[in-house]
């Protein structure tokens, strides 16, 4: 049995994030850490240390699927792990992310008013007004929080569904951050001179 390190408990942070967002939507801003830390580690360090070690979401799915036995532990269908699906999902995710940023901009500009809803699976608009207590921040700050929480909740729901249907960490197969950081790593080491052939073949 391997000795547990502090970073083996980051699933608590992921769970707390989802719970805190139900009480005050502004906590959603903390989710930016899950975007920037993996990217910084990939660009600066050239590896997927975030996925491999720190990702609280991966740990949470692992815990629910393995420890709590909520996963069927079946193989994931081939199309879900195919390159076109992984990169297609990444692109789709990007489009929805920029749409969310644009919404924030419209609220910032004053064109639109703040909508206190969380959009689940890009479709279902859940009223979420109890988690916003008004006025303390600019409306666009709250709009971004609602949008970002929608992204995080949607990906968690997708991850939970695939966790139950397939292996616990099935989300990792098509996680946009994982695909993005892996692409960065591949780009970093595909420049011929810095990639030793024998290491690739090993």
């Amino acid at each position, binding site marked *: *049995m*391997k000795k547990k390190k502090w970073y083996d408990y980051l699933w608590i942070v992921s769970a707390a994030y989802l719970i805190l967002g139900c009480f005050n939507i502004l906590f959603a801003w903390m989710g930016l850490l899950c975007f920037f830390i993996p990217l910084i580690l*990939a660009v600066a360090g*050239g*590896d*997927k*240390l975030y*996925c*491999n*070690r720190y990702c609280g979401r*991966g740990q949470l799915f*692992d815990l629910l699927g393995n420890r709590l036995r909520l996963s069927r*532990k079946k*193989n*994931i269908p081939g199309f879900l*792990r195919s390159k076109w699906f*992984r990169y297609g999902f990444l692109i789709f995710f990007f489009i929805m992310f920029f749409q969310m940023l644009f919404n924030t901009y419209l609220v910032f500009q004053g064109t639109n008013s703040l909508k206190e809803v969380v959009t689940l699976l890009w479709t279902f608009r859940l009223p979420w007004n109890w988690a916003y207590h008004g006025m303390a921040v600019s409306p666009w700050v709250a709009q971004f929080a609602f949008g970002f929480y929608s992204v995080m909740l949607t990906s968690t729901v997708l991850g939970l569904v695939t966790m139950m249907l*397939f*292996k*616990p*960490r*099935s*989300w*990792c*197969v098509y*996680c946009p951050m*994982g*695909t993005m*950081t*892996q692409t*960065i*790593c*591949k780009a*970093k*080491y595909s420049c011929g001179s810095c990639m030793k052939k024998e*290491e690739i073949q*090993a």
Partner: protein
Amino acid sequence: MAGRRKAEVNQKSCVACGACAKACPIGAVAVWKGIWAKVDEAKCVGCGRCEKACPASIIRMKEVGA
């Protein structure tokens, strides 16, 4: 003495999530530069835990000559 089965990674389909590395009880699997998982065959005892953990199901146990 290492076992007769060894883990083999289909590197082209690997998503480099590191679930295998976490599952390995002896640290014989590691993610190489964020690109794919690599098995240290000298260490691998063929327990198959990485195969079970791999969410993309791209690790297979292969028989090696006795």
